[in-house]
């Protein structure tokens, strides 16, 4: 038995890489993350041409192809545009279950993803009804903010 298993096992040469990257945040996103950390506020950038308000903020409008110019404060409430509840574990991702929603914060034109806390996820159908598209949420900032997207999450209103 063991001989047969050996004979049919393919020869595998393992390979593994540990590569460290230093991703530059850039001046625009740095302002977003700094406001998040220091003042618990969320800022977006508006296109001067089509008036779409982009969050995460970016230096350009990809549709009008012009530079965005106007910083606007958005939130702290918003509306759920898309959601899912993760029930199976993924490599490198949080331990399930957890809920993620794309929320259009008041004053923004785009949806921003983050965790939704304080939802009972034990029953998928009930949880999905609570997280239904169009339901409103509010941003909860964490106390110890680090200038990361996880400095806040959403809570159902």
């Amino acid at each position, binding site marked *: 038995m063991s001989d047969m298993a050996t004979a049919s096992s393919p020869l595998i040469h393992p390979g593994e890489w540990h590569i460290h990257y230093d991703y530059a945040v850039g001046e625009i996103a740095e302002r977003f993350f700094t406001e998040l950390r220091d003042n618990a506020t969320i800022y977006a950038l508006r296109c001067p041409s089509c008036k779409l308000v982009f969050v995460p903020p970016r230096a350009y409008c990809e549709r009008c192809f012009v530079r965005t110019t106007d910083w606007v404060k958005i939130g702290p409430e918003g509306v759920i545009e898309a959601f*899912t509840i993760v029930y199976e574990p993924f490599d490198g991702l949080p331990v399930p279950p957890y809920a993620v929603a794309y929320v259009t914060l008041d004053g923004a034109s785009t*949806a*921003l*993803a983050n965790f939704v806390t304080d939802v009972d996820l034990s029953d998928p159908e009930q949880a999905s009804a609570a997280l239904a598209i169009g339901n409103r949420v509010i941003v909860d900032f964490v106390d110890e903010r680090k200038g990361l997207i996880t400095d806040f999450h959403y809570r159902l209103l």
Partner: protein
Amino acid sequence: MNIQSRIAILGGAQSMLGAHRDDVRLEELVFEAAEAALDDAGVKRSELDTVVLAGSDQMDGRSISSMVTACPAGAYLKDEIRTTIEGSFAAVLACMRILSGEFETALAVTWTKTSESPYDLVSSLSYDPFYQRPIGLSDVIDAAAAVSTYTGSKSTLADAACSVVVKNRSNGEVNPRAFLRYPMARETIDDSPYVAYPIRRAEIPQACDGAVAVLFGSAQRAKAIDHQPVWVDGVGWATGEYGIGVDPPVHMRALRAAAARAYAMAGVVDPSREFNFAEIFDGTPYHEIFAYEALGLTPDGLGPAFILDGASERHGALPVNPSGGLQATNLRFASGMSRILEAYLQLSGRAGPVQVASPRQGIAHGATTYPAQSHAIFVMRNY
């Protein structure tokens, strides 16, 4: 060198498929497909003018993997170029090279050997490190969020998704080229746990290793082929926004833009009536349903009814994925080229047990994995 007005497909083939093709190295897998495609067309490597490759470095686990795959694809000392978006974009580029009039033959080759790496982890590399990676997203999770933006009846949609899996797995059962050749029962899907709500484990097809190659050629070159040439009369491709932004993702605006260009080029006026079959991206069954609408096979809002009424069944009014699609053969990065190959075999009357009756025109669709940001559409005819 004359600018060409028509693109022919001269032949095509896939390698042997397997959950773990660890009997071959990547380059040997590529050789299997390229050799078989040239054999299918009756064309020698010496007659090959250019080779177009599509590969994913992060999935292959080596950078610029074309360094190792170009020559087994037939490119030794030949004109060769490579793209990275999705397998079917090698076909897009090959079509353009034929139309340029500079090349009589162009072999498009793509591959996937995801058994060698943790797919979910590798796919999460495509998320931006600032706003997305810390939030616990992967392509399946993002696809599930996209499904939630559907505004029609949710219960009908879930039922329709289940029916798509049953249909495609039933088609795959009789397709000798499919990877999963056994059916999936409706109860199995209903009982299967959610991976990311509302997508169930049984709705995400098991991936396989394999390579696919399709030989494109000029109209002149098509005259010298023994079997029925197939024509690519419309090609369109488009890229949408990154992530879920302004547009509800179920609208698949990039797919609509790609299809509009392909239809305009081919002179397709009413896609709901003119196609005899469609081979489309069904990485989840929901993607197939949203594509029914985006491709104009049925009006917006009626995607679920299109499958529930049986229209897209193999013997329905407009068979969709008679091959079994990705649900039966999830070649991941090479899936779009696999759709082109199956559409080609249908139109050349060589699809075997999954042959639809006397097809004259069909479409093939390639899409980047689950969030489906980029799409390519091919309108193909045999007349």
